[in-house]
C-alpha cells in the first residue's frame, strides 16, 4: 500500500513537472523568469521548513543563499564553468559542506539564539563581501551566460531552458525531501520539535537532527542562490542581506512546514506581489509585504500547506 502511494507520488510529481514545463512554453517570458526566481527562493524556503520541522527557524539563510550565488558566479568568471546544471549541483554541495562545518556550532542553540546566530553569520558575510573589490564590492559582478551540456541557448530561449532545468532539479529534490520527511529520521525531527528531552531519553540525538537539517537547508539555500544568480545574470552582496533572509522566513511562514509544494506556491506569491507592487504601487513593496504577512499570520497561521494536508487527508479517508 505504502509502495503504491509512493509510486503515485513519483508519478504525480513527474506529471506536475511535465505540465509546468509545457506551461512554460505558453506563458510570457517575464512570467517564466518570475517562476524561476520563485523556485530559487522556494528552495531556500524548503531548507527553512526542513529546519522548522525540527523546531528551528533561521533568520540568516541569506548566508547560504549568498555563498551559493557567489560559488556559481566565481566558478563562471574565474574557472570558466558555465554549465548551469553543474553550477547548481556544485553550489548545492559546496554550501552543504559549509553548512556541515558551521552546523555543530549553531545546533547548540535553540529558539531566538539559533535564529540570531544564523543572522549574525549572514551579516558578517555581507560585511566581508561589500569590502572585497576583487569580486565587485557592493556592486557585485556579472555572471557569464549559461550553457547546457556545452550548448548555449539563444537569448530568446535562455530563460525557458533555465526554467526547465530548475523545474526538473527542484522536482526531484522535492521528492527526495518528501521521502526524507516520511522516513524514521524525518519523523524523529518532528519529535525533536515537540519534546527534545523525550527524544534524548528515547536514545536519539536532537543535536544530530539539528546538524543534519541545517546541512540540508544550507545545501538547498546554496542551490537557490546559484539559481537566482544564474537567472539574474548578476550577483551582489544583497543576496546575503538581512532583508533577503527575512523574505525567506516570510515564505516559510506563509507556506507552513506541512507541505513541500506549498513552499513554492508561497515563493511564487511573494514574487508576484513583489512584481505587481513594483509595477503598480512603486516604493510600497515593504508596506505590501508587511500587510500580506500580517494577514497570512492572522488567517492561516499553519500556512497554506495546512490546506494541502487537509485536502490529502480527506482524500485518503474517502478512499
Amino acid at each position, binding site marked *: 500500500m*505504502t509502495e503504491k502511494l509512493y509510486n503515485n507520488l513519483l508519478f504525480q510529481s513527474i506529471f506536475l513537472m511535465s505540465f509546468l514545463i509545457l506551461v512554460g512554453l505558453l506563458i510570457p517570458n517575464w512570467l517564466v523568469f518570475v517562476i524561476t526566481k520563485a523556485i530559487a527562493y522556494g528552495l531556500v524556503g524548503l531548507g527553512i521548513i526542513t529546519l522548522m520541522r525540527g523546531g528551528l527557524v533561521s533568520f540568516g539563510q541569506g548566508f547560504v543563499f549568498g555563498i551559493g550565488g557567489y560559488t556559481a558566479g566565481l566558478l563562471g568568471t574565474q574557472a570558466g564553468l558555465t554549465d548551469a546544471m553543474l553550477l547548481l549541483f556544485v553550489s548545492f554541495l559546496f554550501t552543504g559542506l559549509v553548512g556541515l562545518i558551521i552546523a555543530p556550532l549553531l545546533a547548540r542553540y535553540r529558539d531566538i539564539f539559533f535564529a540570531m546566530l544564523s543572522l549574525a553569520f549572514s551579516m558578517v558575510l555581507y560585511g566581508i563581501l561589500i569590502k572585497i573589490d576583487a569580486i565587485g564590492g557592493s556592486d557585485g559582478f556579472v555572471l557569464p551566460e549559461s550553457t547546457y551540456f556545452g550548448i548555449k541557448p539563444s537569448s530568446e530561449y535562455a530563460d525557458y531552458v533555465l526554467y526547465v532545468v530548475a523545474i526538473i532539479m527542484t522536482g526531484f529534490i522535492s521528492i527526495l525531501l518528501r521521502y526524507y520527511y516520511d522516513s524514521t529520521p524525518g519523523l524523529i525531527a518532528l519529535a525533536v520539535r515537540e519534546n527534545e528531552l523525550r527524544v534524548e531519553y528515547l*536514545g536519539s540525538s536532537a543535536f544530530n537532527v539539528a546538524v543534519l537539517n541545517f546541512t540540508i537547508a544550507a545545501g538547498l539555500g546554496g542551490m537557490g542562490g546559484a539559481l537566482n544568480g544564474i537567472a539574474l545574470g548578476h550577483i551582489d552582496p544583497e543576496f546575503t542581506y538581512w532583508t533577503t533572509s527575512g523574505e525567506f522566513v516570510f515564505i516559510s511562514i506563509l507556506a507552513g512546514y506541512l507541505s513541500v509544494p506549498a513552499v513554492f506556491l508561497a515563493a511564487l506569491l511573494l514574487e508576484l506581489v513583489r512584481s505587481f507592487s513594483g509595477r503598480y504601487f512603486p516604493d510600497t513593496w515593504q508596506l505590501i509585504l508587511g500587510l500580506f504577512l500580517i494577514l497570512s499570520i492572522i488567517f492561516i497561521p499553519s500556512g497554506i500547506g495546512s490546506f494541502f494536508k487537509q485536502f490529502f487527508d480527506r482524500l485518503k479517508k474517502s478512499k
Partner: protein
Amino acid sequence: MSKQSLLRAENVNKSFGAVVAANNININIDKGEKVSLIGSNGAGKTTFMNMVTGYLKPDTGHIYLKNEEITQLDPRIITQKGISRSFQIPQIFEPMTAWENLLIALGTSQKKHSYFKNARSKENGDFIDEILNRFALNEFAHRQVSELPGGVRKLLDIAMALVRKPDILLLDEPTSGVGAEEKYPLMDTIAKALSGQGLTVIFVEHDMDIVQNYSDRIIAFYQGAVIADGNGNTVLNDSNVKKYVTGKTEVKVKS
C-alpha cells in the same frame, strides 16, 4: 539460579547547595527484580533516578550498569545502553497520535535508519500494534494524544520507554495524577505488559499499597540516604520507615 547484578551505585553523593539530595548511596539491583523507591517528597528518590539516567551527575561516587560505569554518560547514551524511563508527567509528543508516538519511539530504537524509506512500513506497524495490544491501547491508537485521559497517557509514556527493549525500566510515579479507582487497573495493565520479559523494573511510588503489591523489594529514602532496603514486610514495618516515610503502623495488602 545465581543472581546477576545489573545496576550498582557505589558511594553516590549529590548536593544542591546546602541540601543533600543523595547521601552515600550504595544500592545493588539484580536482573529481574521489581524494586520500588519510597520516601517523602525531597527524600532523594527522583534525584537517584535522575542520576541513574544521566540527567544529573553525582558529585562523587560511581554508577555501573552491567559492570560498565555510566556515571558521567548522557541520558541518550545511557538509554542506548539499556536503561529506559517514563516520567511523572508523561513526556509524549502532543500533536501526534498514540500510534505515531510509538512509531517515533521505535524509530529511535533502531540502529540503522534509511533516510528514504517510509517509516510507516508494515513491519513497524505490526510491531506497534503488538505494543498497543499489550498495553490495551488499541482503541486510542489513532487519537491525538493531547485528547487522551491521564491513565492512557501514562500507559503510552511507559509503552514508549519499553519499545527499545531495555534491561532496566524506571517508572517515575506511574500512578500519580490518576484517580484512586484507576490505580489498580493501571498497575495491573502495566504489570501484565511487563510480565514474562525478565525485565528489571524500578519505580518511584507514594502509594504504599501499590508498593507492597507490585514490588518484591523496597528501598526507602530519607534526606538523601537509604534508611531501609529489603522485602515489603521488612521495610514497611521498619521503625524508621514508619516514622519518616509511611507514618503508618500497618500496611494493607491487596487481597
